[in-house]
């Protein structure tokens, strides 16, 4: 696989902070949105690895995001360490949690797995809300010392992380492991009969996906400086959003999560700024999701040819 296009796009993204030099533009506001877009790219790629390539549709990625975020936050509150260590610490913590969750949930197939992951996400949220002594409950965790007031460095950190994730997922999918994943998605029984230890490879997909998502969570704690259970374990705003990013962009495609994150986050932001319509952004999201599922089931990237045909009238299909 060639890396010319990704590197070119990365180079373009790297100069985005120059937006500061443009007069009349609220650079901080736009940088904030860019950071969110890149963060959602990571979450999308993580979901895509497990659900898009391996076919295990997860409705509970907020669980991993939240565990990553709380690892970071608790390190700061309980041990007085910089919350940045949470990035490193989240690997074993989220990995172990994913192993445990996988042990229970991966025995289940298709929609049952999806339901079990919803349950996991909700259980974790309620536990975090109720263990007030440990997590601070609904009060959440506040990181009092911000590393930078300015957003440029946060942007570069998350961009580097996203580039790394992109490369990592790409390598995995090109490797034998990736072929196993797709085989499991297409027909689990056939894969099993061909000698693929499906439980093992599903677990690997889950743990890898979880760790990537946990990174995004740990970054979120550092960047936003405040987390609480309702935000980081949110069913709609994290778990379903992760699904939407990939569904809109394109399931099991290289660029789907990237494009999906750009479309979804920028759209959310634009809708929010329109007066009166702003409160309806979930409605518009829902409608978009329904339209995409019915008309572009493989997302903007997956159904690019179909879209092009639609946009170029006069040519018959």
């Amino acid at each position, binding site marked *: 696989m060639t890396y010319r296009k990704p590197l070119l796009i990365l180079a373009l993204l790297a100069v985005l902070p120059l937006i500061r030099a443009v007069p009349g533009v609220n650079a901080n506001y736009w940088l904030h949105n860019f950071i969110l877009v890149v963060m959602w790219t990571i979450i999308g790629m993580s979901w895509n690895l497990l659900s898009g390539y391996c076919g295990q549709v997860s409705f509970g990625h907020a669980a991993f995001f939240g565990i990553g975020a709380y690892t970071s936050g608790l390190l700061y509150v309980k041990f007085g360490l910089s919350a940045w260590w949470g990035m490193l610490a989240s690997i074993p913590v989220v990995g172990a949690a994913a192993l445990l969750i996988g042990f229970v949930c991966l025995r289940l197939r298709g929609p049952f797995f999806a339901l*079990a992951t919803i349950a996991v996400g909700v259980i974790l949220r309620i536990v975090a809300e109720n263990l007030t002594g440990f997590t601070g409950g609904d009060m959440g965790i506040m990181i009092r010392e911000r590393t930078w007031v300015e957003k440029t460095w946060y942007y570069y950190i998350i961009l580097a992380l996203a580039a790394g994730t992109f490369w990592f997922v790409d390598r995995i999918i090109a490797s034998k492991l990736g072929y196993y994943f797709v085989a499991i998605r297409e027909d689990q029984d056939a894969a099993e009969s061909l000698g693929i230890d499906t439980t093992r490879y599903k677990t690997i997909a889950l743990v890898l996906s979880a760790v990537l998502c946990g990174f995004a969570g740990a970054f979120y704690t550092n960047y936003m400086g405040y987390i609480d259970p309702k935000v980081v374990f949110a069913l709609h705003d994290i778990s*379903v959003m992760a699904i939407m990013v990939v569904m809109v962009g394109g399931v*099991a495609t290289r660029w789907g999560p990237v494009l999906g994150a750009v479309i979804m986050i920028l759209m959310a932001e634009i809708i929010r700024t329109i007066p009166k319509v702003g409160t*309806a952004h979930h409605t518009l999201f829902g409608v978009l999701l*329904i339209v995409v599922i*019915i008309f572009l089931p493989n997302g903007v990237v997956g159904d690019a040819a179909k879209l092009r045909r639609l946009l170029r009238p006069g040519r018959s299909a």
Partner: protein
Amino acid sequence: MSAAKIEVLLQTLISGLLLGGLYALIGLGMTIIMGVMKIINLAHGELMMVGMYVAYLLFAWAHIDPYLSILVAVPLLFFLGVALQKYLVNPVLKVDAILPENQVILTVGIGMVLANLATIIFKSDYRTTPVDYATKAWYLTDLWKDSPIELSLSFPWTVSFLFAVGITAALWFFLSRTDMGKSIRATAQDKDAAMLMGVNVERMRVFTFGLGSALVGAAGCLFLPIYYLYPDVGGQFTLTGFVITILGGLGSTVGAIIGGLILGVFESLTATYVGMGWAPVGRFVVFMLVLVFVPGGVASLLRRRRFGK
């Protein structure tokens, strides 16, 4: 065990059973949709929310009792369900996509739209329906003067429970005694065989989605006098609904009733003995245990006993 402890336990069991009867009604709607369509309707709670708002509006405008508004909410929700099935779910069943879970994700989208529209129309205020019998209750000491323990039976809870039992009985009659009901059960059992026997499977699907929505709409009216109402109220009932569906065994109506009762009692026990906030965790712990140890739910246990004989 002292008398006071027994009193708490019995009272917990009573309120658990009353809650369970209502839960069963929610689970029933979800389970018949699951049985016939083979999809999990994650917009179920949001449909219930619509039913609750219908009853609320009727009460606020015309002072119609929530129990009476069942007569309005049920047909309304039926047609809403029919429309959703016909124009949204059916097209997706025909679309060829990488992930077969598309339909589940679609229902999540529908739920999001419904909840958000309710927020826009009604704002996110918490509302209650001040029916005049809200705090009425029967006490054991009224019947039996020197009873050593005191138990109470809340009036609206009991009425809601009885309504739920009545609706469940009517549903049972419909499914087991009428031609339409038998066709629905045949479709759930084996779609292709039913088609060969001359059942209009497409029509049964549409009708079932409507029926499931109507049932949960009725549940919404029954919950209104005893619960508060806000636009996002549906989410938790969706979760309750699918826990019951799994607990009872997918597509099994008897299982859903038993599952609903078990869940109601279990939640009530968790709320009393562990803490109010933990009740939902208890619900999901049951759910995970069932998924891992009894994946077929209550229905599979019932079936095993029957075969054992």
